[in-house]
């Protein structure tokens, strides 16, 4: 369950935390776009430097990020094997028993590794520094221009925020049921195949039952407070951009400029 800690909101009071969520999402999107420009390793160096500064501004330790990327090692090594078998361009690095490793295989894998790492850090930066509720407010605002073509932006934001809201609840619930069943002798690690199936069943069935119950109760509670779908509603929390957003957007846009110039 500890892996879920990756990207979980950490309540701090930093520069990044104080940014307007709308601009934070936009900034993240621009950073992502710049990661996908073929700007070579120099370009990635520039982006990495930028991201590293952003990490400093958010007061996240690099150690935490590295720890959360451990599961990627398996995927990357798998990718490296595939690449080294398939890619036959570039110069030959070495040749053992008829197997040739080409330089492009190594470079391609490195490329993907750098891209993935940057993407993960960028998204983590956003989710770590933004409350889920603010995030959905931002998404709602950013989607609102599409209302004209019939996109239910508020409903989408509401669905996202409810889903996000219930993730910790479901984790708690899962832990609780696991413990309750452990008290009844369930052992997920030991036992025969049939026993393991039963163990998983004893976890999933109660989880489903309580999720449906919760959903129904939530719907009732929302209706009782007068929630009507597609009704116009005002908002308690008003988003206001500050000078920080200008600074951040300025930084991100000039980074994009540099990247485009490098990839020309």
């Amino acid at each position, binding site marked *: 369950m500890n892996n879920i800690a990756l990207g979980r909101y950490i309540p701090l009071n930093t520069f990044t935390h104080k940014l307007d969520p709308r601009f934070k999402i936009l900034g993240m999107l621009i950073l992502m776009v710049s990661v996908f420009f073929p700007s070579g390793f120099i370009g990635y160096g520039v982006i990495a430097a930028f991201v590293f500064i952003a990490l400093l501004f958010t007061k996240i330790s690099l150690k935490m990020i590295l720890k959360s990327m451990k599961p990627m090692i398996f995927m990357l090594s798998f990718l490296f094997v595939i690449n080294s078998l398939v890619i036959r361009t570039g110069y030959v690095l070495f040749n053992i028993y008829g197997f040739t490793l080409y330089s492009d295989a190594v470079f391609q894998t490195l490329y993907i590794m750098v891209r993935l790492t940057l993407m993960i850090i960028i998204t983590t930066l956003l989710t770590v520094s933004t409350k889920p509720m603010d995030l959905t407010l931002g998404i709602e605002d950013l989607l609102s221009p599409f209302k004209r073509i019939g996109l239910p932006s508020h409903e989408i934001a509401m669905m996202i925020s409810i889903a996000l809201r219930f993730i910790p609840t479901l984790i708690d619930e899962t832990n*609780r*049921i696991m*413990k309750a069943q*452990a*008290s*009844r002798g369930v*052992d997920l690690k030991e036992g025969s195949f049939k026993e393991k199936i039963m163990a998983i069943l004893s976890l999933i069935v109660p989880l489903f*039952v309580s999720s449906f119950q919760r959903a129904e109760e939530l719907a009732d509670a929302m209706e009782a407070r007068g929630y009507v779908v597609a009704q116009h509603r005002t908002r308690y929390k008003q988003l206001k951009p500050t000078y920080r957003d200008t600074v951040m957007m300025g930084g991100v846009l000039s980074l994009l400029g540099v990247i485009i110039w490098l990839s020309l």
Partner: protein
Amino acid sequence: MPIAFEKVNFKYAPNTPFAYEALKNIDLAFEMGKVTAIIGPTGSGKSTLVQHLNALLLPSEGTVLVLDRTITNKHKPKELKSLRQRVGLVFQFPEYQLFEETILKDIMFGPLNFKVPEAQAKVLAMNALKLVGLDESFAEKSPLDISGGQKRRVAIAGILAINPDVLVLDEPTAGLDPQGSKAMMELFLRLNKENGKTILIVTHDMEHVINYCDNVVVMKDGEVINHQRVTDYFERKTQVEDIQMNLPQLLMFKEALLDGGFEFKQPMRYLEDLAEAISKEIKR
């Protein structure tokens, strides 16, 4: 064979920004063969404490002795099943743990996990069903089709069928109707008196504490601030008020009578004690 905590600390989510110290330096020994109540305000660490008793949580520091097992943080305890068979833990709102097709199968789930033969598990399950006051007609029903109170009984039967020596209950009567909760508490008392089981109950209900329990452990902010016999505990009114709880009705009535000029010397626990004392006073 004791159940004891020695200098136990417990931290949730250690080494993260979310770290929270739920138990602080707990030194505690429960009396075997008795009914002990664990009381205290919400968030005082009661549920965390009881989860140490069958090693669902391991102490961050210190030692927990449960029966013949020693549980510490140092080496991961192996083979916890035998411990969990002897220490039955009923969680808060246990009705959520039901999952089988029939009530009988659900109650048999525990014993079967502990390798009790099927035929014997069935006998144990039927007995447990009877103990919690449900008749045989329930055995083949689905555990999802019955009322909330009945679900609670089935869930508790699921632990009773395992036949543990120590029964730990986390707020077993929360949300039950008064009659149902009285029947429940009487069942636990009977299990204690007739079968000699050690019973630990986390509760908020002072009426249950005075009527059914022998000892009381009081927790506050992750610490044990009191551990006494129930009769001694209620002797001093301020002790109860310290944790923002009310005295049991009987003792409130006694207080009111004292204020009104009655004079009682002897300690009181049950309604009969009070009635006797009042009649003595009136005759005098």
